[in-house]
């Protein structure tokens, strides 16, 4: 009896803690979206500035996600399938951007692209990253690529190499076996990775701010817009940007939970 009561107490206390946390998060979201009227919100969303921010955010995050996919597929495959010298070191380094504060990453990117001969060489070829939308793409890519990499690595590790073996006996080259068998079997991981990389890209602020700056109607993504408008008291515009970011986050979270439940991000 006493034992049951004690178990009951644990149950009551732990459920209470979870409810408290839920209430805190919900309150926060409700606070933002109800801070202004629906009409004001709608009007703000139609302004040229917010429309620009939406477009730039969509474009940069989609581009950086594609970049993440393009490099993570081969890199994750190598680390999932092959043994080679320095593998564990590479594994750790590839995860490093996760632990690095985005602002620090941004400083690094700024130094690399702004001051080194490598960065200057790229700029001479027309690839200017400092204070340009291209900088936003690179900042998003650098900060978020570990998410894609880790999810894909987990996905590839979860696929028995025997599928590829069979495909090879059935006439595939190594590349074809990957393309026709492993990649289709990874589609959930790929989707989950893309969604999380994309949504984190849309929300990326610190590194982008450092490298691309916060110039109205030039490098103004949604988070930059939120920051700029908050600083100058344009509350309606700021809330509009925040609301869009909330919607994107919630939808992404839903898709990720639906398809990426098996993938290990951390």
């Amino acid at each position, binding site marked *: 009896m006493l034992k049951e009561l004690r178990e009951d107490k644990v149950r009551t206390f732990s459920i209470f803690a979870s409810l408290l946390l839920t209430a805190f998060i919900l309150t926060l979201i409700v606070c933002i979206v109800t801070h202004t009227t629906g009409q004001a919100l709608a009007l703000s969303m139609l302004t040229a500035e917010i429309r620009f921010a939406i477009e730039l955010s969509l474009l940069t995050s989609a581009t950086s996600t594609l970049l993440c996919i393009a490099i993570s597929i081969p890199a994750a495959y190598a680390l999932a399938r092959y043994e080679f010298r320095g593998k564990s070191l590479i594994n750790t380094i590839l995860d490093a951007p996760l632990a690095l504060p985005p602002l620090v990453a941004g400083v690094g990117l700024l130094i690399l692209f702004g001051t080194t001969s490598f960065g200057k060489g790229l700029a001479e070829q027309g690839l200017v990253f400092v204070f340009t939308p291209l900088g936003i793409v690179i900042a998003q890519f650098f900060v978020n690529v570990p998410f894609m990499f880790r999810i894909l690595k987990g996905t590839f590790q979860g696929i*028995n190499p*025997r*599928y590829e*073996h*069979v*495909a*090879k*006996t*059935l*006439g*595939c*080259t190594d590349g*074809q076996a990957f393309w*026709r*068998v492993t990649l*289709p*079997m990874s*589609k959930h991981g790929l989707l989950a990775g893309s969604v999380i990389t994309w949504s984190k890209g849309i929300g990326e602020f610190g590194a982008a701010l450092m490298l691309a700056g916060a110039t109205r109607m030039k490098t103004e993504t949604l988070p930059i817009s939120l920051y700029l408008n908050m600083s100058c008291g344009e509350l309606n515009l700021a809330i509009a940007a925040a609301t869009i970011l909330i919607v994107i986050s919630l939808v992404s979270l839903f898709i990720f939970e639906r398809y990426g439940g098996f993938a290990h991000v951390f």
Partner: protein
Amino acid sequence: MIRIENVSKDLGEFFLRDISLEIQDQEYFVILGPTGAGKSILLETLAGIFRPDTGKIFVDDREITNVPPRERNIGMVYQDYTLFPFLTVEENIGFGLKSRKMEKSTIKRKVDELTSLLGIEQLGHRYPGTLSGGEQQKVAIARAIAIEPKILLLDEPLSALDSRTRDYLREELKRVKRKFGITMVHVTHDQTEALVLADRIAVLMHGKVMQVGTPYEIFSKPQTEELADFVGIENILRGMVQRTENGVAEIEIEIHGKIRAVSEIHEGAVKVFIRPEDILLCKSKSECSARNVMGGRITDLQDIGPLTRVTLDTNLVSLITKQSRAELQLQQGDPIYATFKATSAHVVSA
């Protein structure tokens, strides 16, 4: 003919050491061995998934050691089916034909032929995840033979199935071999499977081929004690050959006294292997017809399926039918005579 010459491969935990084998055309060849013996690597090396560290592999006198899997014309079936989960049964079976750039209508015709041959024509549009284990394995077999391979490699193909499905699929495998004239190389740890299916068996242990022979040679005439133990020979006696006459040796065995056994070894220390089912039991010495009779007491009776395993205080083990047990009215502690023929004992030098 497949010829494997001195093949070694080291993958850390699993390895092959100096494997040499010859497998004849259209033979049903079983590679038998305990878990971790290196059976799967041997098969995957034959398929071209792994390249041997040393040694060569030939098929019909053409060296294929460095030929990629896709050019070997070898089919592969795994224990866990490895059907492509995102393709239907038809698409799975047609996978290899599509790789060979065959026309859609030809692929369709071949897939239909195979599904009807294996009795899975009603499953064509289903996805592998919705099929039973037996059905999935049939699809995997159909997929492997669709490319008309000369050789079919089977890695524990029946091990994940329930016993009825296993019996049924065993017959299917034999039928496939007869119909298409494919050389089958089948890896298993299951001795019954090896006994039922094999034309010849190679026993693989610790990455080495221990013995190659017909099922009779492997199960009744193993060459070492380890092999004897592996194939279930529970009676291993040690003794000295006293003399031989007309190919029958008189061997002095500790505790048991003199026995007679057909032997090619004429002197020295020997081991005598006798399968438990070759040891018969009788209540009185006079009823025993065989030349070797040994008295003892029953220390244990154990039912295993339709058989009873009888252990004697002389450490001999006999397998008898339940019917014999009832007729002899055997009880623990009973005095009993164990008897076996001179031809049932296999003698190797110690």
